[in-house]
Structures are given as structure tokens and as C-alpha cells.
């Protein structure tokens, strides 16, 4: 058996805009032609059709974890559907070697009137498990989903969290050789999401091939060793996820350190305020994509206030590459804090001090809301990315240690270390302490 589990060669797939067929009269001859094999060639593009995938080729080795990223409509889900045989490409070849499970939707086939137990069996077999296999894993699935008490309750009475947990629990216990996962981690509470991410990492370590489609960039960088960037049905790049995530986030602009929306119609915003630009700047004011771990970095938000008389609060959320929410920074400038603002163009800048963040890739999500009443105006996820870089110069927080430094922050703390007594005295102290303890 070869080492390649998935091979896609020059795959093309077309779709139609709008309604796929208008009347019986049109389709019967077309269908007849298709069956006989005459008529229009499958590789021609008719009116209203477009290529959802254009000349897609890639190979996957056993045990590889690959992330597929790209904007909406880039063809990510179409690739998964072609690999899982739901769709067939119009041209090109797809070879899949091994048992494949696709998790394009969690809880597909769940029936609201059936109870948890019945749905585990139904959903499990739909996903391709054998009954004997489900019997074996049943207790594990129930424990993973944390629904022991509700096993005999119809799932229509489940909370949405329980529903999703049960659905994912079944999916997580599939044992395919190739696992396709589409954007399913966007559900469930944070704790459960983390559990799922860990489970997926385990899956990868067991030597299975995983294809992972997500908008969750931190998850991609954390889980995958390789990523494929798609745009408009074409593969733009194929390589290490760090580079591709950056490339993807910067695809609509020149740098990940600055995002600009000069067209008001396309800019994120609400009734009161509209985003204009977001920039990361170094101390000297230059737009920056990376910063020395010891130096501060500025996040600058430029926005238009469209209605007077509202109290506004711009904020930024910082995430690290593991998807851990590091902190939330709210506008604290005393001049405009809790004061209604007039219409105009505003700039809010926050300085994140040096010697605070740990090295790695940091993701910024930015937003703005009005207070009293609280109305979110915009919130843009993973809008900017920057690297915190450590140049082993000596005056960092490492203290001479050259190995990896864990943790989500890397603060420069004040340490005091001094000698309190000489060796003989210390030994005597220790002996006396020991005596005391035995006496007690």
C-alpha cells in the first residue's frame, strides 16, 4: 500500500447559479442525453454555470493533518464533498485509499422525537459505524457527551448545548483512517470546544489523515502541519499554516498589520459607528507586523461616528495561536470615558506594553459598542495578526535560559535574590528545625 491516502488530480466541478432546473420539459431531454452520453460535453460551461473548483490537485500522506482555509465560496466544502463522494467532479480524478468519514454537519439525521440512545445508534450508523462498534463504544460516547441522565429523553427536550455535545460525541468516536471535518467546532461552549480540539489532536497523533476546514485561524495553526489556501475555486498556496494564515488574512490588503475599509458600504458598522481602519504600529509609528518581545505595540482604530449622543467603547480582544483568549482591552481614555460623543472621525489608540505577551502569533479581534444602551456596532474576528519575536539578546525575561518558555504571558517581574546565612549556620538551622518537628 502506498503512503498516499488521498490524491486529487486536476479536479473541476461546476455549479449553477439559482434554480437548477426549471421544468420537466427541459430536463428530460438533457437527462436522456446525459445517460446516452451524447449532447453537450460535461466540460463546457453553459449559461448561468460557474466553476466551483478549478483544476484542484493535491496529495495527502497518511497521518497528515491539513487545514483548508479561504473566504466563503472558495470551494472548501465542495472539496470535502467531492472527497466524501457526495458530489462527483465534472473532470479530473479523485482517489481515496482508506475508510473515510466526513463530518460536514454534526447531528445529521438526529430525529427530535427519538431519545438519546436511539439517536446515538441512528447517527452512528449514518456516519458509517457498524452496530457492533456502537455497542462497544456506547458508554464512552455517553460519558463524553455528559448526558447520562437524559439517555431516555427525546432529544427535542435537550438544551442546544446537550444536543451538540451528543452529536459531537458520536462523531468523535468514529475510527476512520481519513477524517474530514468542516467548521463544526463553531458550536458548543468554550470548555467543550477545547475538549473537541484535544480529541482532534489525538486523532492526528494516532496516524490518521485529517482534513480540517475552518475559519478558526488559531485552531488551524495549532492543529495542522500543512494548510491549503483556496480562493474562487483555485489553490493559491499550499504550505505551512503560519504563512498561509498570514497570507489569507492579508489577501484583501497589503499587510496583516493594517486593515482599511475606504468603501463605507463594505465597512463593518452599525447605526452609530462604522469602522474605517485598524493598524498595528510600533513605537516609532510605523505599521508593524512583528514586534520585539520587549517593545510595546500600538493598536489604532479609526472609525466614523454617524450619530451624536452615544457613549462609545472601542475594544480589542487578543488571542494566542492556541485560541486562548488572553485579554480584552477597553477604551479607558478619561477624556471621553462615559461621555456622549459628537459625529466625526475618531481615532482610538491603545498601547500594549513590552514584556507582557509571550512569543508567538497573536490574533486581534476588534469591535466597538455603545454603552447604555449596549448595542454592538461591529466586531471583526481575527482582523489582524502579529508576531511577538524574541531575539535572544540577554535582557529579556529568559534569565539566561535558552529552552522553551511556556505560558500565555511573559511578564518582566521584579525578582530579589540574596544570601541570608552562610553554610554552617544554615545546616544548624535545618537540624534545629528537624528537632522541633519531631518533638511536636
Amino acid at each position, binding site marked *: 500500500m502506498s503512503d498516499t491516502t488521498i490524491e486529487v488530480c*486536476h479536479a*473541476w466541478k461546476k*455549479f449553477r447559479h439559482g434554480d*437548477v*432546473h426549471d421544468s*420537466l420539459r427541459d*430536463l428530460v431531454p438533457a*437527462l436522456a442525453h446525459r*445517460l446516452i452520453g451524447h449532447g453537450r*460535453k460535461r*466540460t463546457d460551461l453553459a449559461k448561468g454555470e460557474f*466553476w466551483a473548483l*478549478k*483544476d484542484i490537485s493535491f496529495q495527502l500522506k497518511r497521518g497528515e493533518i491539513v487545514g483548508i482555509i479561504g473566504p466563503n465560496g472558495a470551494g472548501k466544502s465542495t472539496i470535502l*464533498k467531492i472527497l*466524501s*463522494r*457526495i*458530489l*462527483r467532479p*465534472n*473532470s*479530473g*480524478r479523485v482517489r481515496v485509499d482508506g475508510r473515510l468519514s*466526513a463530518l*460536514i*454537519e454534526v447531528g*445529521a*439525521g438526529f*430525529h427530535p*422525537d*427519538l431519545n438519546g440512545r*436511539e439517536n446515538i*445508534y*441512528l447517527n452512528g*450508523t*449514518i*456516519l*458509517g*459505524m*457498524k*452496530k457492533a462498534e456502537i455497542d462497544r463504544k456506547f458508554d464512552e460516547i455517553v460519558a463524553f457527551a455528559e448526558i447520562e441522565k437524559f439517555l431516555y429523553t427525546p432529544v427535542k427536550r435537550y438544551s442546544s448545548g446537550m444536543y451538540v455535545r451528543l452529536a459531537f460525541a458520536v462523531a468523535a468516536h468514529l475510527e476512520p483512517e481519513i477524517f474530514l471535518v468542516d467548521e463544526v467546532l463553531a458550536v458548543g461552549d468554550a470548555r467543550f470546544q477545547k475538549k473537541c480540539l484535544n480529541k482532534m489532536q489525538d486523532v492526528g497523533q494516532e496516524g490518521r489523515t485529517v482534513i480540517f476546514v475552518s475559519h478558526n485561524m488559531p485552531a488551524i495553526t495549532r492543529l495542522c502541519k500543512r494548510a491549503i489556501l483556496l480562493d474562487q475555486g483555485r489553490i493559491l498556496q499550499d504550505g505551512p499554516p503560519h504563512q498561509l494564515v498570514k497570507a489569507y488574512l492579508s489577501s484583501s490588503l497589503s499587510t496583516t498589520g493594517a486593515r482599511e475599509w475606504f468603501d463605507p458600504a463594505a465597512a463593518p458598522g452599525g447605526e452609530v459607528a462604522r469602522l474605517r481602519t485598524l493598524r498595528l504600529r510600533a513605537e516609532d509609528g510605523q505599521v508593524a507586523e512583528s514586534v520585539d518581545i520587549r517593545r510595546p505595540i500600538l493598536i489604532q482604530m479609526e472609525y466614523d461616528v454617524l450619530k451624536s449622543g452615544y457613549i462609545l467603547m472601542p475594544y480589542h480582544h487578543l488571542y494566542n495561536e492556541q485560541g486562548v483568549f488572553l485579554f480584552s482591552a477597553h477604551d479607558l481614555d478619561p477624556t471621553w470615558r462615559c461621555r456622549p460623543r459628537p459625529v466625526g472621525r475618531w481615532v482610538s489608540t491603545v498601547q500594549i506594553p513590552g514584556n507582557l505577551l509571550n512569543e508567538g502569533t497573536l490574533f486581534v479581534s476588534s469591535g466597538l459598542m455603545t454603552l447604555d444602551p449596549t448595542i454592538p456596532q461591529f466586531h471583526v474576528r481575527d482582523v489582524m495578526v502579529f508576531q511577538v519575536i524574541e531575539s535572544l539578546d540577554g535582557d529579556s525575561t529568559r534569565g539566561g535560559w535558552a529552552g522553551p518558555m511556556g505560558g500565555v504571558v511573559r511578564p518582566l517581574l521584579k525578582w530579589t535574590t540574596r544570601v541570608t546565612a552562610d553554610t554552617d549556620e544554615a545546616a544548624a538551622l535545618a537540624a534545629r528545625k528537624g528537632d522541633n518537628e519531631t518533638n511536636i
Partner: protein
Amino acid sequence: MSTTEQQTTEVLAAESVLTPPMEAPTDEERQTLWETFHEIIYELLQYRDLLFQLTLRDIRIRYKQAVMGVGWAIFMPMLIVAAGFVVRYAIAHMAKSELNWGDFAAMGIKALPWAFFVGAIGFATTSLTSNINLVTKIYFPRAVLPLSAVLAQAFDTAIGAAAIAALLFFLEIRFSLQTLWAIPLLVLLFLFTVGMAFFVSCANLFFRDVKYIVQVLLTFGIFFTPVFYEPSNFGPWGCHLMMLNPLAPLLEGSRLAIVEHHNLFHSIVLTSSGGLPIIAWHPAYLVYAACWAVVGCLGAWLLFHKLQFLYAEYI
């Protein structure tokens, strides 16, 4: 040439390069009929647990939160028999003849397979379209959806059959060797129903008005199928015409075998008032129905399988 024009031509050039190459058909398309059927059967065996679970789902849903419970399974055939009784009573009244209990038993025996056919086709028609999120999101042999609809209905029919058996016992219609004809007849009925189920579920996926057409056909079909009467009632030509309905030989055959204890290998010829013989039964009728069942089932299954990669796109 201005810069924008240059850019446009460049883009156009790039687009024209990006057309898929002409392709020789892939291995999958060069499959022989035998290989296709091998694939169909192999896949179905692979997914037999799914077929079982889906059938179980359909049965459970039908009986969950239902007032009638198992009574539902015998309600439909009972209603058909009651309707038949009314029709037959009217005819008997006009003809100044009498209804006997044998007619009652005959209607019961024919009502049950008819109810099976109507129920199975009714559920199967929407089996693909009502599971839209499965068809577009997950791969499995799509044949399990209409098949599970037919199997769930078969479960209902089995309960109904027990009731009919009790009725026959009460009407003093005894078991004979000819009663065993019921087994091949039921197999043929099942095959025919499966074939139709594949055909209508697939057709309904592409054209959503198919389910209304099917509904109308099933409602009025009982008048064109010998459930309330015998084909021989229609005279020499009418009998032949009636037997063109593939269900007619199956229903009439079961009546003859179970109620009349007739061996279906032998034909029955009656003499009509006009002098022409009425061929009330001939083994050829059975062969004709068997052809419909077997060829129809295999053909419809093949069509269903060949089109299944289009389902996710056209649903």
C-alpha cells in the same frame, strides 16, 4: 493600449487557459452492468446496519405519541375492506344477488397488499427529499432511504397480516398447500414496490410535483386494480385489460390461491354470456407480473444508483 485594457486582456488570457481538459471516461463510467450490480449489493451490505436503524426510526416515529398505536397497522386495510363492502353491497343489490362471506375474505386478502403498496410508495416518494440534510451532507448509499420506507411499511403489513389470518380462520377458510403461493406472490409484490419506490423517490427529487401526481394515482388506483372485484367481472377483453396492471395478477393470484385453493399453474376459463371464453386466470399473467417486478426493480435500482451522485446537487 491603456493599462486597464492590458490588464483585462491578461485576465482573459488567464481565464482561457483555465478550462478543463477533455477527458477520457473514468473507470467508473466504463463499468459493466455486472460490476454495477456487484457494487450496489456490496455497498448495501456494508450499510445494512444503517438500513436497519433507518427502518427502526420510521417505525418508532410512526408509533411514538400516536393514539392508535398498533391499531394503525390494521386500520388502513380495514377501511379498504369496509369501502369494498359498500361498493359490493350496492352492486349485489342492483344485480339482485347476495354477498357471501367468501367475498369478504377475498377483499381482506387483496386489501392488505394494496394497503402495503399505497403506504410504501407514499412514504418512499418523499424519502429522499425529507432527508435533505443527509443527502447533501453525508455519503451513504442513497438506496437505504426508499428501502427503509418500504421495510417500515412491511412491518405494518406484517401486523395487518396477522389480523387477516385471524379473520380467515374465523371465516373458516382453511390452510391448504395452495396457500403457500402467498410466499412467491408477496416476494414479487415486494420487488415491484421496491422498484416503484426507487423510481418515484428519485423522480420526486428532481421534480417536486411528482409527489402530488403519485398521491392522485394512489388514491384512484384502487379503481383500476382488482381489490373490490374480480377481473373476470369485466368480460373477455376487460379481464385482459385489467390484468395489464402489474398488481392485478398478484392480488388476484393470492385470492385464488388462498380463498379458492386454486393451483396457479392451471388456468381458469369461464364462459361469458356472449359465448367468448373469459380467461380468469392463466399462468402467463403471473409471468407477466413477475417480469414487471424483477425487471422493474433491477432497472429502477440501476437508474437510482446511476443518478445518485447528482442528488446532492439537484435536491
